[in-house]
C-alpha cells in the first residue's frame, strides 16, 4: 500500500468545548474544569518545551500557580525564541479608538480571515482573552507605543477596518517575549521553574497511554537523558523550515511535534502554510534564510512589474505605461492591500510569466516614488525609516532611490498538532500551544494574530485547562529509566543518533535540507496541483532513502555538534514534508494559504468547497512512509456563516 492510499478513520471531535452561547463557553468551561488544591500543585511536575510567547508565558504562569515546571529550549537562553522576531503587533479588542471594534468583531474577522477552517469556540475565546493580554503585558512593563497623553497607541493592520493592533515600533514580538521571559526568569529564580537551555527534545515518553515525559539531548555535552512529568506541554513553534528557506529562525524545527505525532498525537491541516508577500528576495544559492519586511509597507508602496517579459532595464528607465501595477489592475477596490495569500499568489503568477525582476527573476517592485512625491521624503522616513534601513543593509540598494524588490516567503504554519478546546492533543496529558497547535487560525492567519494566540494559550488558556487534567489524574506512578516503555523510547532515540553518525556518506545535512526545501517550494508552495503533489510524494521517499545512505555527520554524539543537530531535524522534515503534500493533495479545494489550481473561480480566484472540505483534517501516524489515517473534525459555523472571500 503506497503512502497516498490513506484511509479514513473515525471522525475526531472536540469534546471539551461546552455548548451554549459562544460568548459563555469559556466561562462555562473554566467553571466545569476541576481544580487542583494549591497545596498539592507542588507535587505535580509539568514539562514545557519551548520558551517563545506561548511556552514562556505558560511556564511562568504555571509556576506562579504553584506547579513544578521543567522547561526546555534549544537556544542558549529562553530569551532568544523566534517569537522575538515578530515585527508588526498584537491584536486586542479593546476598542480604545471607539471605532466599532468589539470581541465579536475580532472573532468574526479571525474566523473569516481563516477562510472558515477554524473552530468558532476557540476563536471566540481568543478574542475574549485578547483584552486581558494587553493588561497583563502592560503590567509587566512592556513598552508599547503611546500617545502624548500617555495612553496606548494602536494602528490598523492586515486589511481590517478597525485600529486594534498594539505595537512597540517594529519590535512588538521582541518586547512581548521579553515580558514573558522576565516573568519566567522570576520563577526560575524562585526555584519554581527548572530551566534547561541548550537542550533539545528528541522524543516523547508515553506510558500507559499518557504523556509522561520527554527524551532530550544536552546540546553541549551530547548527553541524551529522560525527564518525567505528570503532563507535557509542547510550545515548540511551527514547521516552516521544512521549506529550507523561510522567515523562521535557522534552528526552528519540527522535531518535538513530529515525534509527538509519531507517538500518537494527530497532526491537523499540515498543508496550511502562510506565505508572506513582502520578504526580501533571495540573492543566490548561498541564501540561508529570508527576511520579512513588515506588511505595513503595502499601505504606501505600489507593487509593479514590467509589462514585457524579460525586461531587464533598470526600473527608472521603464516608462510609466510599460509598467503593470498588477494588484491595482486585478483588484481595483483593495489594490495593494489585498490579503497576504492573494498578494503572494499574484506575485508568483507574474514571475511565472517571466516578468519578475532582479536576479533569477524572482521578485517584484515595491515602489515608494509616488509616496515620496506625495508625502515628502521626511514623512516616508518617519513612517518606514527603520524598514528602509534594514532593506538597504541587506540588499545594498537605497529604497529611497530604487524601488524595493520583494518576493513571497514561507512565514507561518497554521497547521499543527490537533488539540481540543483544552489544548490537549489526542495523547492524554500532552498539550500543544502557540504555533505548535492548529487551533485558531484556520487556513490563513491574519496579521498581528500570532502573538495574540501564543500569549492567550500560555497566559490564560492552558493554565486553566491543565488543572482539569491534573485534577482528574492526581496520582501517576513514578517513572524511572528502567520502565520498559521508557527504555524503548530512549533506545530508539540513541539508535537514531548513532545511525546518523554511522552512515558517514558524502552529502552534508544542508544539501538534503535544501533539496527537500526546493521540492516543497516548487510543489507544495504558493500554488499546488495534484500532478505536482504526486510528483513530490514520489520524490520525497527517494530523498529520504538517499539521506540515510549518503548523509555525512562529522564528530561524535558526545559533544557540541551542530551538524548532528541539523541532521536529526532533517530526519523529521523528510517525514513531515510527505504528510504536508498528502494533506495538500487530499484537500482538493482552495482555501486560505492552500491554493489548488484545480479549484478556482472563472476569474482565477480561490474556490473553497465547504460541502466537501468543511473540516479540519487530523492525520494519524502509522509508520514511516506508510499511509496515514485521516480523521475529520467537522466544523460547525453557528455565528459566522461561510461566504466566499472577495477582494476585487
Amino acid at each position: 500500500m503506497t503512502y497516498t492510499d490513506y484511509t479514513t478513520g473515525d471522525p475526531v471531535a472536540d469534546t471539551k468545548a461546552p455548548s451554549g452561547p459562544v460568548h459563555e463557553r469559556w466561562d462555562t468551561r473554566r467553571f466545569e474544569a476541576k481544580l487542583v488544591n494549591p497545596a498539592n500543585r507542588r507535587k505535580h511536575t509539568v514539562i514545557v518545551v519551548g520558551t517563545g510567547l506561548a511556552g514562556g508565558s505558560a511556564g511562568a504562569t504555571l509556576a506562579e500557580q504553584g506547579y513544578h515546571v521543567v522547561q526546555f529550549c534549544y537556544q542558549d537562553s529562553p530569551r532568544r525564541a523566534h517569537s522575538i522576531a515578530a515585527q508588526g503587533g498584537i491584536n486586542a479588542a479593546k476598542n480604545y479608538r471607539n471605532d466599532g471594534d468589539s470581541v465579536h468583531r475580532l472573532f468574526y474577522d479571525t474566523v473569516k480571515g481563516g477562510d472558515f477552517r477554524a473552530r468558532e469556540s476557540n476563536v471566540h475565546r481568543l478574542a475574549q482573552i485578547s483584552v486581558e493580554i494587553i493588561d497583563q503585558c502592560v503590567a509587566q512593563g512592556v513598552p508599547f507605543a503611546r500617545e502624548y497623553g500617555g495612553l496606548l497607541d494602536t494602528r490598523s493592520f492586515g486589511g481590517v477596518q478597525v485600529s486594534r493592533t498594539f505595537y512597540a515600533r517594529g519590535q512588538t514580538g521582541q518586547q512581548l517575549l521579553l515580558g514573558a521571559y522576565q516573568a519566567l526568569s522570576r520563577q526560575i529564580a524562585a526555584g519554581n521553574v527548572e530551566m534547561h537551555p541548550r537542550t533539545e527534545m528528541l522524543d516523547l515518553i508515553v506510558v500507559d497511554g499518557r504523556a509522561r515525559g520527554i527524551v532530550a539531548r544536552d546540546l553541549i555535552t551530547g548527553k541524551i537523558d529522560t525527564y518525567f512529568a505528570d503532563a507535557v506541554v509542547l510550545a515548540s513553534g511551527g514547521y516552516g523550515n521544512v521549506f529550507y528557506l523561510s522567515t523562521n529562525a535557522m534552528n526552528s524545527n519540527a522535531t518535538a511535534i513530529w515525534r509527538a505525532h509519531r507517538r500518537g498525537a494527530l497532526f491537523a491541516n499540515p498543508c496550511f502554510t502562510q506565505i508572506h508577500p513582502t520578504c526580501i528576495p533571495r540573492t543566490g544559492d548561498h541564501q540561508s534564510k529570508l527576511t520579512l519586511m513588515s506588511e505595513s509597507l503595502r499601505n504606501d508602496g505600489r507593487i509593479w512589474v514590467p509589462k514585457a517579459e524579460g525586461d531587464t532595464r533598470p526600473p527608472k528607465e521603464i516608462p510609466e505605461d510599460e509598467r503593470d501595477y498588477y494588484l491595482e489592475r486585478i483588484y481595483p477596490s483593495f489594490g495593494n492591500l489585498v490579503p497576504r495569500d492573494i498578494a503572494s499568489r499574484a506575485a508568483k503568477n507574474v514571475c511565472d510569466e517571466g516578468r519578475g525582476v532582479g536576479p533569477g527573476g524572482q521578485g517584484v517592485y515595491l515602489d515608494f516614488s509616488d509616496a515620496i512625491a506625495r508625502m515628502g521624503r521626511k514623512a516616508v522616513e518617519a513612517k518606514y525609516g527603520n524598514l528602509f534601513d534594514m532593506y538597504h543593509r541587506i540588499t545594498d540598494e537605497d529604497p529611497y532611490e530604487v524601488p524595493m524588490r520583494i518576493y513571497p516567503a514561507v512565514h507561518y504554519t497554521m497547521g499543527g498538532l490537533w488539540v481540543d478546546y483544552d489544548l490537549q492533543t489526542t495523547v492524554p496529558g500532552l498539550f500543544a500551544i502557540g504555533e505548535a497547535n492548529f487551533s485558531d487560525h484556520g487556513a490563513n492567519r491574519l496579521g498581528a494574530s500570532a502573538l495574540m494566540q501564543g500569549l492567550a494559550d500560555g497566559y490564560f488558556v492552558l493554565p486553566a485547562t491543565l488543572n482539569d487534567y491534573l485534577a482528574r489524574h492526581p496520582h501517576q506512578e513514578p517513572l524511572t529509566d528502567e520502565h520498559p516503555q521508557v527504555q524503548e523510547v530512549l533506545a530508539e532515540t540513541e539508535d537514531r543518533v548513532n545511525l546518523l553518525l554511522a552512515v558517514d556518506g558524502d552529502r552534508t545535512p544542508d544539501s538534503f535540507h535544501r533539496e527537500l526545501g526546493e521540492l516543497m517550494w516548487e510543489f507544495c508552495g504558493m500554488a499546488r496541483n495534484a500532478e505536482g503533489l504526486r510528483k513530490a510524494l514520489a520524490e520525497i521517499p527517494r530523498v529520504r532513502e538517499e539521506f540515510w545512505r549518503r548523509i555525512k555527520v562529522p564528530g561524535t554524539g558526545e559533544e557540541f555538534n551542530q551538524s548532528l543537530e541539523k541532521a536529526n531535524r532533517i530526519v523529521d522534515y523528510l517525514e513531515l514534508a510527505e504528510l504536508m503534500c498528502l494533506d495538500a493533495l487530499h484537500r482538493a479545494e482552495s482555501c486560505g494559504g492552500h491554493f489548488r489550481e484545480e479549484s478556482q473561480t472563472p476569474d482565477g480566484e480561490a474556490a473553497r468547497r465547504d460541502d466537501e472540505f468543511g473540516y479540519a483534517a487530523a492525520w494519524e501516524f502509522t509508520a514511516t512512509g506508510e499511509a496515514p489515517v485521516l480523521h475529520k473534525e467537522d466544523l460547525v459555523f453557528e455565528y459566522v456563516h461561510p461566504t466566499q472571500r472577495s477582494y476585487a
Partner: protein
Amino acid sequence: MRLTLRVWRQRNADTDGAMSTYEVDGISPDMSFLEMLDVLNERLILQGEDPVAFDHDCREGICGACSLVINGDAHGPERTTTCQLHMRSFRDGDTIDIEPWRAAAFPVIKDLVVDRSAFDRIIQAGGYVTAPTGAAPEAHATPVPKPDADFAFEHAECIGCGACVAACPNGAAMLFTSAKVNHLNVLPQGAPERETRVLDMVAQMDAEGFGGCTLAGECATACPKGIPLFSITGMNKEWLRATRKAGKR
C-alpha cells in the same frame, strides 16, 4: 571574493584553543558573514573535518544569538549584528580574524560559542516586574508619559547578545544590566521594585565575575542596538538612590 580566514578553534571548555587558517573562495559580496561561514563549513564537513561551531538563530538581527569578534570588533566593522553584516564590507583578498566573545564570565563552549547564561542570572536577580498572570489592572489605568515610554523602549531594545561585554576592556556587563534597569525603573509599573531591582542586579553582575566600568565607551560603540553609554550613568544614579534609601531603613 577570495578570503583568508583565521578562526579560533577550541574543541571544548577544557581544552586550549588556537587560531586556524582557512582559505575560502567564490564568496559573493551579497552573502551575510554567517553565510560565508556556512560555505566554509559545508566544505569542512565534506573533507571530514569538524565544522566551525558558532551561535546563530534568527539571522535577522533580533535574537542576539550570533556573537563573533571580527578583526577585533564585536560583530565586525559595521554597527549591526554579525548576521546582518555582509561580505561587501570586506575586500577581495582580505584576511579576517574571527574570535569568540572574550570574558571570564563568558567561558568558551566550543570554537566561537560561549556560555552567556550569566546574563540570564542577572535578569533573574531582578530584571522583571512582579506581575503574576491575572493580577494586572486595566491597561489604561496608569498612563505613562510618552517620553518615559520612549525612554523605556530605547533601553528595552537590548538583545542580550553580549557585544558590550566582548568589547569592554574590563569584561564589564554594565551596559547590559543598565539597559534593563533603565527600561523597568522609568515605568510606573516598575516603580515598586525600583530599589531592590538595581541593587540585586548589580550584586549579581558582580557575583558573575564581570569587570567594572571605566567609562571606556567601547560597549556603546559595539552595541548593535545603539544602547547609549549614558544608560550606565542612569543605572549608577539608580544604584546610589537605592543605596541611600536602603541606608535610611
